[in-house]
């Protein structure tokens, strides 16, 4: 490590951070400007001065399907996360306590290694035969295929940090292993569950690929709606910008709350040597 003690080093560091922030924030600023740009300037990204308008916001929020799409996205993301946690918590606990081959825990990432393009066709066929195309349940099922492994992986590391003696103590104190799990171990990993939930929520919320192919009408999610502003007549930039901002806001807020658990979670169940 080098220290920021010298004046010149501090100035250099300041500029480095400023440049990085600029690069990261610029798209947001630009999208925001697009969202308040009058239609007459549409499609001209290099125009910076214009009379601001709320037309795009009014249109998207009041006259489009976007509010319904937002609701769909919330329903899908919440259900996906709820089911993923219900499955992932016991699974992660089991992987954490498993004393056999320690590489086994990596197997849950195997599904994650597969390109979604391989999974989508079987998904489509199965849902088609079940008559579940264009249903929220179908999207939820598809999202579970990648959210469950990620949430489980994320949680293993948190369970690893809870000493086994804690559940041993509870069992000696008169409880079954299952009671020990939900009365003692689960509360101890609550921050991890929260972080894993948020992480899974964002994954589901942001998904375009599965949602685009499995939903059509009623069940369209927000990313699908955003993509919908890109039509064969061109991109309706102003309205798309509004929808993008709406999509990004929950992600930003949620990320802020879990940032401190994020790194630990992504490290997950990587066996510590």
């Amino acid at each position, binding site marked *: 490590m080098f220290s920021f003690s010298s004046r010149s080093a501090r100035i250099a560091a300041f500029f480095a951070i400023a440049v990085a922030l600029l690069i990261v924030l610029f798209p947001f600023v630009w999208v925001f400007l697009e969202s308040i740009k009058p239609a007459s300037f549409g499609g001209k990204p290099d125009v910076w001065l214009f009379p601001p308008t709320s037309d795009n916001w009014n249109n998207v929020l009041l006259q489009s399907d976007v509010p319904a799409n937002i609701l769909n996205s919330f329903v899908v993301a919440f259900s996906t996360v709820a089911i993923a946690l219900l499955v992932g918590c016991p699974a992660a606990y089991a992987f954490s306590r498993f004393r056999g081959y320690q590489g086994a825990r990596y197997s849950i990432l195997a599904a994650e290694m597969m390109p979604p393009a391989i999974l989508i066709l079987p998904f489509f066929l199965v849902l088609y035969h079940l008559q579940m195309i264009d249903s929220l349940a179908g999207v939820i099922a598809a999202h579970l295929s990648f959210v469950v492994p990620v949430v489980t992986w994320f949680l293993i590391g948190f369970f690893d940090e809870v000493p086994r*003696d804690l559940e041993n103590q509870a069992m000696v104190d008169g409880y079954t292993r299952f009671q020990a799990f939900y009365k003692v171990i689960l509360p101890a990993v609550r921050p991890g569950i929260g972080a894993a939930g948020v992480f899974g929520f964002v994954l589901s919320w942001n998904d375009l690929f599965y949602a685009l192919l499995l939903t059509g009408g009623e069940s369209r999610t927000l990313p699908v709606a955003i993509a919908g502003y890109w039509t064969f007549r061109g991109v309706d930039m102003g309205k798309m910008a509004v929808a993008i901002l709406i999509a990004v806001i929950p992600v930003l807020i949620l990320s802020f709350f879990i940032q401190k658990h994020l790194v630990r979670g992504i490290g997950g169940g990587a066996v510590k040597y």
Partner: protein
Amino acid sequence: MSYVSLQSITKKFGDVEILKGVDLEIEHHQFTVLLGPSGCGKSTTLRLVAGLEPVSGGKIFIDERDVTDLEPRERDIAMVFQNYALYPTMTVEQNMSFGLKAQNMPASDIRTAVHNAAELLGITPLLARKPGELSGGQQQRVAIGRAIVRQPKLFLFDEPLSNLDAKLRVETRSEILSLHQRLGATTIYVTHDQEEAMTMADKIVIMNQGQIEQQGTPEDVFFRPVSRMVAGFIGSPVMNFFNGVGTANGAIETQVGTFEGFPQIRAGQKVEVGVRPDDLIPAEKGETTITGKVLLSELLGVRAIIHLKTQHGLAFKAVVDHEIYRDMKSADEASFTVRDGRLHVFDSESGKRI
């Protein structure tokens, strides 16, 4: 049958046999200490008694009941783990109440029991705190409080003092003892600290490589160690050992001198002669002596440890009073004789006491 009875207990992890047939009888109200080097199977034994691991063979009885196949929660035991295992999200009071809740005790009775136990241990002011807000010593008390409040049939402790500093360790040691005398609870206590074992135990059980090497009172194991292993393990500073060979007339010849009066010794038998540093007393003229060059001396207070080396290069230690230490530390050589009846002889091959 004794209050707690372990009968031919074996335990395997995979192909490795960790416990190789442990038989142990523990009387009601007795304080039993399992002592032994690291990895000898003390914790494993305790976990089998608790039911946290299944046995591979043998039977366990607690208060006349066969508990071998029972779950931990059905055995009516309390355990204090090395790291205390306090429930991190619960307050001290909730921690102590948790086991009683499992027994469906009425809330008001739980409150009374918890407050009485807290009073006994002087932790009443801590009841509303979370474990994270307690010092190591306080956590330790809470863990003990949580155990005694349940009034179980049997207490199990796995090295409960090893995370405390030296002073607190000695204090807590006497506190656990006085608690034991007050409650009369049957206890199995694991440690690898022989001083803890000597001071606390009614009965010491010395384990070695998955077997019981010796069991008896602290005096038994200290004054009559049954094997070379026990002799070397118990006592501080450790016992001095010298190799020797038996002669035809019941004597043992060693490099430090000849010791007589061992009629059971065969001629040519290889033995090890052991003598505790405390049993070496400065020799008068004309006695059989062990003589060595003074290398180093450590004053402990009233007593001092002298490090010596014989003319054949064998290192040994002696513990002497400080007046003697004053003369000896500047001396070149010192001679000692063995206190009467304090010579231990072990067969070199079997390691057994002769």
